């Protein structure tokens, strides 16, 4: 095998394995035929197109969707991320209660139930039939409203209803987005657990995780802007609801003004940039 073929093979690794099995040899043949004789390295144009093409396939962007369909998927992912943050909070409480408190608490049992039910609804959004997702989400929303504080239930119940409605679109959430949901959930869960020894050493690294994810998602917007919009919804959901309650004097810890206006401005900029980018997302 020539050096050029080896380089092209390396670049083709930008595509997922299933795609390379299907198309890899055919693409390699075309690449070699299209290269001028005596060429030893791939052209910059070919390299860029292969890398971007591979990323597009990985992002599920090789099929053209309307802007509305892309926006629906972005909001659906945003709702899923925001719900995972809430679930992480519920499950953190439950785990800390089990590991550090030995007195029975009726509130913890209900937190565990709607935490698990919400988690099931979010995971089902990727894998289960749409009706199952809707039933799980509506059941979890009903539990939040009936068992918990009505005002505090507005956020999870609203997000769950949004999930139940948006899941009834033609396109499913791409499986390649699971890594984002998984990392966000794991970071939120671990961050909640860090006050408990022996996980305290994770506190400082975990502070940087959301910023690293945000950086990756901003860069990824060159290929697919939908995760950027989803992150904007996640940030807005994480900070704005509690800030609004705090502002209204509801029984939550009052926040300093910068704690809500910086995330507000940040989320608005990300959402606007992501929505603008969606228009230019598909280059062919």
């Amino acid at each position, binding site marked *: 095998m020539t050096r050029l073929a080896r380089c092209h093979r390396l670049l083709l690794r930008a595509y997922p394995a299933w795609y390379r099995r299907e198309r890899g040899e055919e693409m390699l043949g*075309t690449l070699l035929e299209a290269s001028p004789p005596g060429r030893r390295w791939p052209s910059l144009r070919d390299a860029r*197109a*292969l890398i971007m093409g591979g990323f597009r396939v990985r992002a599920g962007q090789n099929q*053209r969707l309307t802007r509305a369909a892309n926006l629906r998927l972005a909001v659906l992912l945003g709702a899923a991320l925001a719900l995972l943050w809430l679930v992480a909070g519920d499950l953190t409480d439950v785990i800390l209660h089990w590991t550090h408190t030995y007195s029975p608490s009726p509130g913890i049992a209900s937190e565990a139930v709607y935490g698990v039910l919400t988690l099931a609804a979010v995971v089902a959004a990727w894998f289960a039939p749409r009706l199952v997702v809707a039933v799980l989400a509506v059941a979890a929303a009903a539990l939040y409203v009936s068992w918990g504080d009505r005002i505090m239930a507005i956020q999870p119940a609203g997000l769950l209803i949004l999930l139940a409605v948006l899941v009834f679109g033609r396109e499913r959430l791409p499986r390649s987005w699971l890594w984002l949901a998984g990392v966000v959930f794991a970071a939120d869960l671990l961050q909640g657990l860090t006050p408990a020894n022996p996980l305290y050493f994770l506190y400082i690294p975990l502070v940087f995780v959301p910023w690293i994810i945000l950086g990756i998602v901003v860069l990824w917007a060159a290929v697919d802007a939908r995760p950027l919009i989803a992150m904007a919804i996640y940030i807005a959901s994480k900070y704005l609801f509690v800030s609004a309650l705090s502002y209204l004097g509801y029984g939550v810890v009052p926040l300093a003004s910068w704690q809500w206006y910086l995330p507000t401005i940040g989320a608005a900029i990300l959402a606007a940039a992501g929505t603008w980018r969606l228009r230019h997302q598909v280059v062919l």
Partner: protein
Amino acid sequence: MSEMREPTYFVLASLLDGPLHGYGIIKRVADLSDGRVRLATGTLYTALDRLTAEGYVRLVREEIVNGRARRSYGLTQPGATALRAEARRMAQAADLVTSRDHPRRAGAASRKARPA
């Protein structure tokens, strides 16, 4: 298809005379556009994936050449219809400008020809 980008248009146009394999499409597109549209291989296969999914292009032949799979793609009826619709749309858009070009040029020419 609401809006057809130029590379997509030329990929479909390259298949008007019959099925072609990947490199054949790249060469034909370059010929048809007088070298203006130069498709990179990655770009071509992104377009072929989408056009196949939309039913505008279909796989017509698969053979092994030099130990590698070579697939030829052909235009489907919906693909040909979409291509013609896009060609008509572009012709109308071009006509909007070119039809106004004439009187102005003619006017300019007559002004030049007029004796001082």
